[in-house]
C-alpha cells in the first residue's frame, strides 16, 4: 500500500501535466475574478473566501479522471485488484496520493492567491486550515467518482456531474469557516463540522469506492 502510494505520487510528479496543472488552473481562475467583477478591493475582499474555495474545488476536479484511468488502460488496475491489498486500501492510497499532489499544493497556494484578492489578515490561517481539512474530503469523494466512471469512455464530464453535487456540504462548511473568520465571528464551530465531514468521508468513501471498482472490474 505504501509502495503504491509512493508510486502514484512519483507518477504524478514526473509524468508532467497533472501536477502543476491544478495549480495553474487555480491561479488563472483567481486572476479571472477581477476581470469578471472589476478590480474594486472591497468587493474582491468580500467574495475572496468563496472564490478561493470554489477555485480550489474546481482545480481538484481536474486531475480526478487520472486517478484510475491510466492504471485501468494498461491493466495495472486488474493486477492491483487481484493483489493481497484490500480494495479499500487501494482506494485510500490512491486518494491520499491525489491529496498530496493536488489538495496540499492548492492549500499552500491559496494564501498568496488570497493576498491577491485582498483577503483580510484574520482570514489566512483559517483559509489554510479549512482547505487543508476540506481538500482531504474532496480528494476522497473525487476518488469515489473516479471509481464509478472508470469503465466509461470519455467519462470526464459525467465525473464532474456526479462529483460536484457531493461536494456541496464541504464547500458550504469550508467557505463558511473563512467567511466567519473575516467577519469577526468565531469559525471554530464551522471548522469542527468540516472536520467531522472529512472524517465521515474517510470512513464511508473507501468502502463505497471499492464496491464501485469491484462492479467495474467484474
Amino acid at each position: 500500500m505504501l509502495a503504491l502510494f509512493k508510486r502514484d505520487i512519483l507518477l504524478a510528479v514526473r509524468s508532467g501535466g497533472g501536477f502543476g496543472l491544478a495549480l495553474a488552473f487555480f491561479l488563472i481562475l483567481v486572476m479571472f475574478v477581477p476581470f469578471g467583477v472589476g478590480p474594486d478591493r472591497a468587493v474582491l475582499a468580500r467574495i475572496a473566501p468563496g472564490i478561493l474555495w470554489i477555485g480550489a474545488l474546481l482545480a481538484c476536479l481536474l486531475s480526478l479522471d487520472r486517478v484510475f484511468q491510466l492504471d485501468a488502460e494498461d491493466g495495472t488496475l486488474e493486477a492491483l485488484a487481484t493483489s493481497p491489498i484490500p480494495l479499500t486500501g487501494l482506494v485510500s492510497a490512491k486518494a491520499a496520493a491525489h491529496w498530496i499532489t493536488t489538495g496540499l499544493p492548492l492549500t499552500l497556494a491559496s494564501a498568496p492567491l488570497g493576498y491577491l484578492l485582498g483577503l483580510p489578515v484574520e482570514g489566512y490561517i483559517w483559509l489554510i486550515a479549512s482547505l487543508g481539512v476540506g481538500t482531504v474530503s474532496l480528494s476522497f469523494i473525487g476518488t469515489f467518482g473516479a471509481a464509478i466512471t472508470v469503465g466509461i469512455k470519455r467519462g470526464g464530464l459525467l465525473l464532474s456531474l456526479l462529483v460536484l453535487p457531493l461536494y456541496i456540504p464541504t464547500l458550504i462548511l469550508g467557505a463558511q469557516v473563512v467567511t466567519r473568520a473575516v467577519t469577526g465571528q468565531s469559525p471554530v464551530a464551522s471548522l469542527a463540522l468540516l472536520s467531522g465531514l472529512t472524517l465521515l468521508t474517510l470512513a464511508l468513501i473507501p468502502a463505497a469506492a471499492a464496491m464501485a471498482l469491484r462492479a467495474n472490474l467484474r
Partner: protein
Amino acid sequence: MSLWEYANPVKFMALSGRILPSATLLSAALLLTGLVWGFFFTADDYKQGSTVKIIFLHVPAALMAINIWLMMLVASLVWLVRRHHVSALAARAAAPIGITMTLIALFTGAIWGKPMWGTYWAWDPRLTSFMILFVFYLGYLALWQAVEDDDTAADLTSILCMVGSVFALLSRYAVNLWNQGLHQGATLTATKESPIDGSYYYPLLICIVGFICLFVTLVLLRTRMHIRLRRSRAVLAREATR
C-alpha cells in the same frame, strides 16, 4: 407466499398487469376529486387570496420528490443485497418521475413566490435543497445512460444512490447553517394535530394520496417498459447470433 416472489419478472408482469388498470383509475379519480375540490370549492385565503390553492400541487409534488428518492434508495439496496433485477429496474423507472416531481415543486413554488414573497426565487435553505436534489437526480440518470452493461449500470447507480443519499442529507442540513429561511417550516406532521383548516386539509390529503397512486401507476408502467425493453433486446441478440 412472500413479497420476494415478485422478484421474478414473469410474476411481476402478471401482477402489475392486473393492478395497473385499477391503479390508473384510482389515481385519476383521486386527483380529479382532490384538485377540483381544492381549486374550485375551497374559499380564498384572507391574506393570500386564491394563490393559496397552489398547495394542492406544490405540497404533494414536494413530498413525492423526496420520497421517490427514498424509494430508489430502498430498491437500490434490495438490488445490491438480493440482486433482483426488477428492483434495479424499478429504481431506474422511478428516477425520471422523481425529477419531474422536483421540477413541479420548484415551478409551482416559484409561481406562488412571485405574488407572495415578491420573487420567483430566493436562496432559501428549502428551495436550495430542492435544487440540490434536482442535481442529484440528474447525476443518477446520467450514470444510467452512460454505462452500457445492464448489471454494472445497476450496481454503479445503486452505489451512487447510497452515497448520494448520505450527501444529500448532509447538504440539506448544511444549507440551514448557510442562509436564513424564507420558506415556512413543516405544517403537516403525522404526530400533531393539523393547524390547517379542514376545508383545505381534506382536499390536500386526497391530492397527496392521488399523487402517491399516480406514482405507483407510473412506476409500474415504466418498470414494465424496462422489462420489455430488456426482453426485446435479448430476443434481438439471440436472432443476431443465429
